[in-house]
């Protein structure tokens, strides 16, 4: 598997899904075991990827390059750099954990795990595709499984949430499709002179046609791409699908949605928009940080107003993704010193990774209590700390990580982002920093209402967290703690590639 490690990671889950399709639906344990195995192998390969990845170069590694559809110049082109490797690791880890966390699914088991594995294939594909068409196909492949996962296994308003998610994302992706075709028709392959979908050719401005060099055209294409990605992030005002989808989705799907799918939006901007349209990225730097600040504050205020634990975590995601935008915007400002830009963008990508792990813990934690009490009303609990001490400590750990407690990974990435943003956009950075205070407020307030205070007699019989649930939470917890103390294992992965990105965008 050494040479085709990315392809194996990407397609192993879908092979697992195909196997599951032929297992009789009564054999639930076998189906679950096959699913776990199909998600475990990419995780092992991800470790191999982590070990084998050369941290010293910004070039794409583990490259696989084949002709796919010749008449449209479409290639099967996979490869990873320092931006994609952390995302691949995150995807592999969270997918496996989510399969384990889904063990109690009892309805249409076969469909659930098959769809989940197809979803995993789509995620790996997005993070490793280097052909725009291939990227787009993987991007869209995820929609159908996600629709069903929310729509069939979700909560009471699942039908509404599922189609809303689908409509929003598709609306964004058709704009991306048009932008992609515009690129296809206006970028020439330097070797053959024909059209191309090869992203590396699209990165090279010398291959762009005259029409594509017009400023207005570039800005319009940028906006098309941006809306497509912004819906996924989601950037306010395109965020309204997110709370609905999160509240209705089953726990494991929420974890994937917040942990990986949201990252695809920011990943898309960094992978596609920035290098292909660097001048438009500079043009959009200020709007980007403003949108980031709005995301941070708006998400945090909304989170404070929620009475549903899951909705609170959902809005906290909106808020936390705002930090990523802040760092991404600050990086593009012309004239900022390299060090600040590096802090900003490394912080942003690191924040993508950290938010993936931390928010996964929070959603898993909410899932634990929901499985027992069958509701998520913040005001309906109280004093759970006495009833479920182990669970309380795990969940508090996740919440402290979310509010950015020093010593946990979220603190490092947020600090880096502010260090980078402050020299570039002082006022915005100062205003955004308020988000941390509000973040602490909603987190602590929830902690207090749910776990502290007088014990609610209704929940005298709730059992504490069990071994399987611990198994899902502990690995993530270790990573959060470890990266909070020593972040270099992840920062080293991306540093060179991101420095190269700064050179491309901000010159």
């Amino acid at each position, binding site marked *: 598997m050494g040479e085709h490690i990315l392809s194996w990671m990407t397609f192993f889950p879908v092979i697992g899904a195909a196997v599951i399709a032929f297992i009789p639906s009564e054999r639930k344990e076998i189906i679950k075991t096959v699913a776990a195995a199909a998600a475990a192998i990419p995780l092992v390969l991800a470790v191999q990827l982590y070990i084998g990845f050369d941290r010293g170069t910004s070039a794409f590694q583990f490259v696989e390059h084949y002709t*796919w*559809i010749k008449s449209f110049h479409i290639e099967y082109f996979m490869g990873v750099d320092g931006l994609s490797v952390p995302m691949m690791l995150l995807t592999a880890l969270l997918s496996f954990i989510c399969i384990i966390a889904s063990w109690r699914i009892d309805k249409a088991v076969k469909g659930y795990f098959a769809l989940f594995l197809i979803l995993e294939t789509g995620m790996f594909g997005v993070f490793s595709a280097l052909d725009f068409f291939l990227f787009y196909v993987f991007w*869209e492949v995820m929609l159908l499984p996600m629709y069903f996962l929310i729509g*069939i296994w979700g909560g009471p308003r699942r*039908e509404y949430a*599922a189609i809303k998610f689908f409509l929003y994302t*598709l609306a964004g992706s058709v704009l991306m*499709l048009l932008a992609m*075709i515009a690129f*296809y028709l206006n970028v020439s392959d330097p070797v053959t002179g024909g059209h191309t979908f090869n992203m590396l050719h699209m990165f090279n401005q010398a291959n762009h046609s005259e029409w594509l060099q017009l400023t207005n055209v570039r800005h319009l294409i940028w906006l098309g791409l941006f809306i497509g990605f912004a819906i996924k992030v989601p950037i306010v005002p395109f965020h309204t699908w997110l709370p609905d989808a999160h509240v209705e989705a089953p726990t494991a799907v929420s974890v994937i949605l917040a942990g990986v799918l949201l990252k695809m939006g920011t990943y898309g901007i960094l992978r596609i928009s920035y290098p292909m349209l660097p001048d438009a990225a500079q043009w959009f730097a200020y709007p980007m940080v403003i949108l980031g600040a709005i995301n941070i504050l708006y998400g945090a205020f909304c989170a404070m107003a929620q009475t549903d634990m899951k909705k609170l975590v959902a809005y906290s995601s909106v808020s936390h993704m705002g930090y990523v935008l802040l760092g991404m915007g600050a990086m593009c400002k012309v004239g900022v010193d390299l060090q600040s830009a590096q802090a900003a963008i490394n912080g942003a990508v690191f924040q993508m990774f950290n938010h993936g792990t931390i928010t996964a813990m929070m959603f898993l934690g909410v899932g634990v209590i929901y499985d027992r009490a069958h509701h998520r009303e913040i005001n309906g609990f109280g004093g759970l700390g006495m009833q479920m001490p182990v669970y309380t400590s795990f969940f508090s750990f996740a919440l402290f990580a979310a509010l950015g407690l020093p010593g946990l990974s979220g603190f490092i990435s947020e600090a880096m982002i502010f260090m980078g943003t402050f020299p570039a956009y002082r006022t915005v950075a100062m205003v955004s920093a308020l988000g941390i205070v509000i973040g602490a407020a909603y987190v602590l307030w929830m902690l207090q209402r749910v776990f502290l205070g007088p014990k609610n007699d209704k929940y005298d019989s709730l059992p504490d967290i069990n071994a399987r649930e611990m198994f899902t939470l502990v690995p993530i917890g270790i990573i959060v703690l470890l990266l909070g103390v020593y972040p270099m294992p992840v920062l080293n992965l991306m540093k060179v590639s991101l420095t190269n990105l700064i050179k491309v965008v901000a010159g």
Partner: protein
Amino acid sequence: MELLNLNIPSWSDLAYWRPEAILCGTFLAALLGDLIGRGRRPAISFVISVFGLITAGAYSVAAVLHGGAAHTIMGDLIIVDGMAAFFRLLFILAGLATVLFSWTAEEIMGRKRENKAEFFYLTVLMTAAMMVMAEARDLLMLFLSMEAVGLVSYVMAGYMRTSLRSTEASLKYVIFGAVSSGIMLYGLSLLYGMTGAMTFDGIRAGLLAGEVNGLSLLITVILILAGMSYKIAAVPFHFWCPDVYEGAPTPVAAIFSVGPKAAGFALMIRFFYTTLAAGADPSASAPLIELINWPLLMAVIAAVTMTYGNLVALRQLNVKRMLAYSSISHVGYLLMGFVLLTDAGLAAILFYLAVYTLMNLGAFFVVVALNNHIKSEELDDYAGIGFRAPWLGTMMVIFLASLTGVPPFAGFAGKFYVFTAVMDRQWFWLAILAALNSVVGLYYYFRVVKAMFLTRPAEGADTTPLKIHWLQYTVLAVLAVPTLVLGFWFGPLKVLADQAIGLLSTGM
């Protein structure tokens, strides 16, 4: 200046016309078989029809394999070239799938039906007539073949003689058909008056040679377009379409939604491409297209058709009616390929038609299969049906997702090709409108998916698994597998479509 060509048809012409000849023979044989069986042995006609269609299909494939040189036959009225070969295969696929699937369709084979066999040989006859539509190169043949398809369609729409809806559908079809044919005929006569020629290339030569008044050419083109728009159900000549689809038995609606439409597109491609566009000499054609502002005319028709079809489909609660309006919107997407009459655009139409045939037939067939059991096409009655027939439901999801245009399904490849062709010539507003339209499409297509999988059936509703006939599963799989595979691997079909159009331009 000749009314009829002097080239006398000879028996040797039949060598290039074997599939058509076989289908005509099949029709007669199946008709005789029905008479011998006194109308009580539909199996005779069914077997003859299937056999005939397969044989004709084999000959069509052989004709493709043996090279694509164009042959003008039957006294220069007919041309057999790459595009004709492409459409032959398409029509035979649609005809064969429909005949096979209808064998177990209650609406055709139900106990109370009297004229069961009729459906099979009429489908064969329609297939033959549609092939001729794709081959006509003369105004006379153009009109005759269109009317032949129309006549068969009227009978098929009224297949359920005792049903009020069905007879109403048939009557509506006849009246609309007669009016639009009349309008078109008037346009054709004007064209003949302007050029004095009946063959398409003769018309082209006449238009290029003489001083053509732009306004009169525009009026002529619009009149002719009226007749053709009726055939493909483009706005504003679509009114018959939903009523006919709803009134006619679903298998009939299925073949109506793909066959005559594709034939209409074939005719339009050959007619307008030869008379107005490139032909042998691309440079000379630009004035004609510009004279009548063809691109804008077509872009507006396409935009209105797709948007109208989509918006009305949003409000339908009957799946058949929804599919009818959705097919109107697909005509809009297809018409985008006509905007510039470029090779890429026309090849995109062919590509999309092939894909559309697979997915739309599939969606209609699922409706037929469900109608066998639940006797309804109302959305509400579909609740939870996906869990009663999981494979059928999965295939319906494939067809509907493909109709929406989501990768990795064939419908996406079709849209991608059409969009690329249009954007290549900078028609951005049209591409953006079409892209947004496909988002609208998602909503109504997935309302069916929602009913089938997401909605829980009412208390006490039947939840027993449905038994679907193996023949239906086979036909559906034959449609669903390419719908999926062509989403990943559409290179060969693209090459086929490009070749068909390439041979069209050199074959004149």
